[in-house]
């Protein structure tokens, strides 16, 4: 994959990927800020800031930027994670220059009007409520808060309502000024465009941001510690559980092995967990494993849905399956299958301009730009011994945490009080 980069004097990086056959182009702007940069009293600030960036800038007042994008047949959106914030526009291939201008103005010159801040607080508080109404989201919050104790990876992205409700414009602005600095920004352009023009335009817009010192890196590496078993009871109909343990750091080569190891453990119908807990013992309604790459220490997590009466057996069998890999290894066929599965997913992630932009931008931001290009080569070299070693190194029955959400014992969950009336 031919990817070009330009480093501007102010520290900003541009990543270019020309795709001659793509009718759609994408611009993604990555800022190296997320919930890991927040203090306890700033919980949800990165996400709130992301919302406000669409609420007016010097040249695009109010919602005129999103309106402009949609009026030219494009889509605009943003996402905040623990480790980064991404703003993006997908549009027809000939609109890329306009998209760059708009995003540059938004990122460089946001207005943060008090009126917009007040209105957007209500929107975000509603988003928080919606998020916490979802059992899987609630579990995810609790899971991160358990397996990370010192690392700021435990911080919630969505944040807390009371903090958002009380945040001042000054706090918001200071946060923005600290993190939205050129050395902390990667711009990615993917599609069918004139590279020289794009490079020049990014230089004249993003390249003009004032150079500023980079913020201090938060504590993101987590030391190994024992896991916890937590059961919460709520208004849910079935059992939900996230089980997991700490994995390799972003900078470690084990990260490549993690993808394969976790695939063999719990991705697809031939995976260990699926075959045993779903097919053979019918203990779960669904089970999937993921390797969560994070800035800092990653984690292996397993999401299962089940009949609450099976919870102890599910926990035990998850442990048994991992222990089984450590003791008995995996077959060459399983290893080959996992490699192919990952290659397939990789191919699917290169179909759309925005997916390519997201993948490239992420790895550049994480300081490992060669990840995408060397990924397949690295995968090919992984052996059965690497897989066994991976689980030996990161897993033990003491290190795994299980966070479960089960139906309340004292309520009848189908209880719905309703009234029906006909309006004239």
């Amino acid at each position, binding site marked *: 994959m031919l990817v070009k980069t330009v480093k501007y004097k102010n520290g900003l990086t541009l990543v270019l990927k020309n795709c001659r056959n793509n009718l759609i182009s994408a611009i993604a702007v990555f800022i190296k800020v997320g919930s890991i940069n927040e203090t306890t009293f700033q919980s949800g600030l990165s996400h709130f800031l992301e919302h406000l960036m669409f609420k007016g800038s010097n040249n695009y007042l109010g919602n005129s930027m999103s309106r402009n994008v949609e009026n030219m047949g494009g*889509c605009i959106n943003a996402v905040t994670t623990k480790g980064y914030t991404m703003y993006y526009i997908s549009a027809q291939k000939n609109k890329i220059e306009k998209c760059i201008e708009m995003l540059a103005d938004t990122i460089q010159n946001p207005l943060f009007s008090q009126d917009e801040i007040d209105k957007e607080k209500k929107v975000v508080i509603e988003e928080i409520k919606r998020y916490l109404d979802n059992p899987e989201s609630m579990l995810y919050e609790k899971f991160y808060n358990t397996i990370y104790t010192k690392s700021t990876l435990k911080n919630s992205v969505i944040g807390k309502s009371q903090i958002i409700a009380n945040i001042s414009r000054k706090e918001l602005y200071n946060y923005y000024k600290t993190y939205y600095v050129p050395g902390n920004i990667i711009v990615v352009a993917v599609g069918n465009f004139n590279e020289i023009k794009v490079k020049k335009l990014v230089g004249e817009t993003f390249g003009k941001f004032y150079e500023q010192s980079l913020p201090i890196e938060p504590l993101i590496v987590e030391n190994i510690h024992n896991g916890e078993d937590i059961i919460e009871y709520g208004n849910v109909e079935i059992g939900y559980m996230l089980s997991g343990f700490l994995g390799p750091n972003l900078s470690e080569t084990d990260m490549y092995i993690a993808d394969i190891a976790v695939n063999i453990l719990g991705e697809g119908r*031939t995976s260990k967990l699926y075959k045993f807990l779903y097919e053979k013992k019918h203990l779960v309604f669904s089970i999937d494993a993921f390797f969560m790459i994070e800035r800092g220490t990653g984690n292996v997590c397993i999401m299962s849905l089940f009949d609450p009466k099976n919870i102890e057996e599910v926990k035990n069998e998850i442990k048994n399956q991992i222990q089984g890999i450590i003791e008995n290894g995996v077959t060459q066929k399983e290893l080959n299958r996992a490699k192919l599965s990952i290659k397939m997913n990789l191919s699917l992630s290169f179909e759309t301009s925005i997916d390519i932009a997201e993948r490239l931008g992420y790895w550049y931001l994480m300081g490992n730009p060669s990840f995408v290009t060397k990924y397949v080569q690295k995968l090919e070299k992984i052996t059965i011994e690497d897989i066994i070693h991976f689980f030996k190194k990161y897993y033990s029955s003491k290190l795994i945490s299980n966070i479960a959400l089960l139906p309340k014992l004292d309520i009848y969950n189908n209880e719905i009080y309703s009234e029906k009336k006909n309006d004239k």
Partner: protein
Amino acid sequence: MISSFILKNDIKVIFSKTYEVDVVALKVFTPVSVINESLDNAGISYITSRLMTRSTKNRSNEILASDIEDIGAQLYSFVDYDISGIGMIFLCKYFNRAVEILSDIILNPTFHDTELSFEKENIIASLNSRKDIIGRVVYDEFIKLFYHKTPYAMPVLGTIKTVQKMNFKSLEQWYKYSYNSSNILISVAGNVDKNIVKKYIGKYFSLVHNGLKFKTPIFNIKHSKPIKKKIYSKFNQSYIYLGFPAPSIYDIDFISIKVANIILGGKMSSRLFIELRENLGLAYEVGTIYPSRREMSYFAIYIGLDKENIDLALNKINKILKDFYTLGVLEQELKDAKMYIKGLHAMNKQTVNNQSHYYGWLEIIGKGHEYDTKYLKDIDKISTKNISDAIGKLFSKDSTTIIISPHLK
């Protein structure tokens, strides 16, 4: 580049040639789906397709799973109100093997009792877990009241009662009706040579036998008066789902309402989004939805909000709808909406999965894949008057409103 050809058993194959990425999406469609179900067998399309992906007469569950994942492929069933099917995504170099596996699934499924009872348990669990998501609770209640006792009134998964009743014999009959050569359509999208597609699809799918041809059921939904139902639930959030009877895909007003949907609530610069979210800060999630259906569809407004704002939101929604209905649409607004639809249309076709689904769907509903280009021309022809006329008819009909609110306790 889209082309099509017919197999010797009359199965039509649509092929969309793509470039750049070496992946293929292959889907076998059938029009036999929820629309054909009754109150007694709701969910039969879903469970039939699900079980077909489990094993065949030639491959046990384990061997089938292994054969699929040995080539890095992904197999899935898809069931909606007007279409059902089974699809695979795989790397181009495995075209021959993937087509053979999918043809085995279509030609030789098995419906074991043990698999059936296990699948029933899973579907019932899925139906139960729907009650844990506010958006699903409100939607399920809406379709139940909106569509009365017609096939569109239930979730695609069916109901606990109907799923429990399913038996081996009924599934086998449903399979024979659904996946015979009189009803099947194959849609392929990917970076593969057309001759390869012809060769292997022809080799394996020409063996599919004919059978009973799909008949479009006709059902009449009578809305004699507005319906409004409030449900007190376990959620912290409240939710409003307000819908009107809307034209089917064959109706003259279909395109006009598609455009109206965008102007009212289909984008960030839509009227509802601007007023309810941007100006008033009432909601995070707000918009409109207008599904494309063979039979009567619905045009619905949805909003997740705080319970204190329910009345205010309902008043504002009514005002926005009334203004839309009485004052009409501005020329610029219409132009912008058309541009947005065209952009979205192109974006949605970036993946092989979406392409094979879209072209297959066009064929199944009888418009043909050629309609893809005509659709954009039809959008261009829409005038502000077309929208006013269509909206006038839409909003003169009785609405169905579901409101979910946190428990009184």
